[in-house]
């Protein structure tokens, strides 16, 4: 996306700048609403989030820039098989039903701040706690880096290269870290609310416009039949396994993203949490499905693009709509605002989560005597340090390393047995979970790294993701060790 033609004129860019700067004002309001100088207030908004804010922050956090840009690109390349992405996001909500009610009640009772707080409460094993926290950190770091890179490209596209990639990344990161350190979760959740509204409105508007202007599924079907009829072939058995494996990644991986778990902790009561998750069950339909349709529309309109070209599928459709006079500059500004909002809301949440994990799970263990106020100050400094380092890496990291940053859910999914089994099986032991997590992670990371470094090992043996194979190994080891260690008297 190095186009030198600016997507927006001076008016549109000014609107975007005002919107981005308004986030700092919201951050300041979040700071003013602070009730106490504690970790719980800073990282969980004092566990007082109401329905609207909780739902919108869950929504804005779960749907990143990848939803708006990457999902449409994938639909362009894979055709109707990209419909798996709808179930991928739904399955995460399905997993919330399994663990959220129990975990919420425990978090309220024992004041959990991070996911690893639960792991430590349940298993009382420092090595396991730190290992789980480290996996969460690595997944979040990769998440932040890939999203920062995306935001840099969008700034270049929006301004036609007038603002270079590096300056774009630095400026938007600076805004994010300012409002995040001012009011913590409260500021992040409030900015997420605004970003969530823009995101939802942008996606729905573009979907409806496409239906009116081109004619919806019928138009897509006829155009693809003429240009690329291979897309109608149903998935073969290996692709079906891959479909199921993708769903598993959503169920066991996306659902336990630390920033999602922390939003569960932040609800002001269980009824609020229940209603928020209930609404979230429908969001894949009006967000992911709509973006898949945008990608299919791009395939119908502009067949024959390569992989890089397909990543710009959404923008191509928008430009075409603009040329037809179906949308004005306002719509373009709205969609680009939605894309930037989606990325920022994900990065700020991941940043806050990383800061909380380093402060609570690592630093507090080394300095247990530190007060809540001191820990909060350290957490803010950690946020600045993480962001500075992430910005540096986003600008200088070579392309070969970027491929390794795709490893996110493969890591996180290995933590899921500690949470799911820990909540439901009282007798399960820390050592079983720790060994399972270790071998599952080694297999998943080993396979992925080898594949990305060019070794002849598939990233998805028999269609199943390396992370899911790792989880199968993880669970098998847990099961075997539990059988071996079972006390016959018991």
């Amino acid at each position: 996306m190095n186009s030198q033609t600016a997507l927006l004129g001076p008016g549109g860019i000014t609107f975007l700048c005002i919107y981005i700067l308004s986030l700092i004002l919201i951050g300041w309001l979040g700071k003013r609403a602070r009730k106490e100088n504690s970790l719980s207030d800073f990282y969980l908004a004092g566990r007082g989030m109401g329905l609207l804010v909780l739902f919108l922050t869950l929504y804005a956090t779960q749907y990143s820039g990848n939803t708006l840009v990457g999902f449409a690109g994938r639909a362009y390349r894979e055709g109707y098989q990209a419909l798996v992405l709808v179930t991928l996001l739904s399955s995460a909500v399905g997993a919330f039903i399994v663990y959220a009610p129990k975990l919420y009640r425990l978090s309220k009772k024992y004041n959990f701040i991070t996911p690893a707080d639960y792991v430590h409460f349940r298993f009382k094993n420092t090595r396991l706690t730190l290992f789980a926290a480290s996996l969460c950190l690595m997944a979040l770091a990769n998440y932040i880096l890939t999203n920062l890179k995306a935001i840099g490209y969008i700034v270049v596209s929006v301004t036609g290269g007038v603002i270079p990639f590096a300056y774009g990344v630095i400026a938007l990161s600076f805004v994010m870290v300012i409002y995040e350190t001012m009011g913590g979760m409260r500021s992040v959740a409030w900015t997420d609310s605004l970003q969530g509204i823009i995101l939802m409105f942008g996606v729905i508007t573009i979907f409806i416009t496409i239906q009116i202007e081109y004619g919806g599924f019928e138009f897509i079907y006829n155009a693809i039949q003429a240009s690329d009829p291979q897309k109608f072939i149903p998935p073969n058995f290996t692709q079906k396994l891959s479909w199921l494996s993708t769903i598993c990644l959503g169920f066991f991986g996306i659902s336990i993203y630390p920033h999602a778990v922390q939003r569960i902790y932040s609800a002001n009561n269980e009824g609020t949490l229940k209603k928020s998750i209930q609404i979230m069950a429908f969001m894949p339909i009006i967000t992911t499905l709509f973006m898949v349709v945008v990608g299919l529309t791009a395939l119908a309109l502009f067949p024959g693009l390569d992989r890089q070209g397909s990543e710009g599928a959404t923008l191509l459709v928008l430009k075409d709509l603009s040329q037809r006079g179906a949308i004005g500059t306002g719509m373009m500004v709205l969609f680009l605002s939605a894309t930037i909002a989606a990325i920022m809301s994900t990065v700020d949440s991941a940043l806050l989560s990383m800061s909380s994990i380093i402060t609570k799970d690592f630093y507090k263990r080394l300095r247990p005597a530190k007060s809540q106020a001191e820990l909060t100050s350290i957490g803010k400094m950690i946020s600045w340090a993480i962001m500075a380092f992430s910005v540096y890496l986003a600008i200088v990291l070579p392309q070969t390393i970027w491929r390794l940053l795709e490893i996110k859910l493969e890591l996180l999914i290995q933590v899921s047995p500690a949470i799911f089994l820990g909540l439901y099986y009282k007798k399960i032991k820390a050592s079983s979970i720790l060994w399972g997590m270790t071998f599952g992670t080694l297999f998943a990371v080993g396979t992925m790294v080898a594949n990305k470094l060019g070794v002849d090992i598939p990233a998805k043996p028999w269609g199943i993701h390396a992370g899911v194979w790792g989880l199968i190994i993880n669970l098998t080891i847990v099961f075997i060790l539990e059988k071996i260690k079972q006390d016959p008297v018991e």
Partner: protein
Amino acid sequence: MSTKKSLIVSWIVLFLTVPWWFSTVSNKWFGLPDWGLYAMTAAIIYSLVLSFIIQTVWKTPEDE
């Protein structure tokens, strides 16, 4: 329905969202290939099932 049964039902529905039954080149249904329509409809049904389970099985202190 108990929590356990509800969860099992939701996992079965989730498993069935994969278009397992389709193997030959498809017919058009409502502007979609039949397996695409199946996948989309199954995803919508799964969302409805989740919402129903949350509403009926998840009992909170606020419900009482």
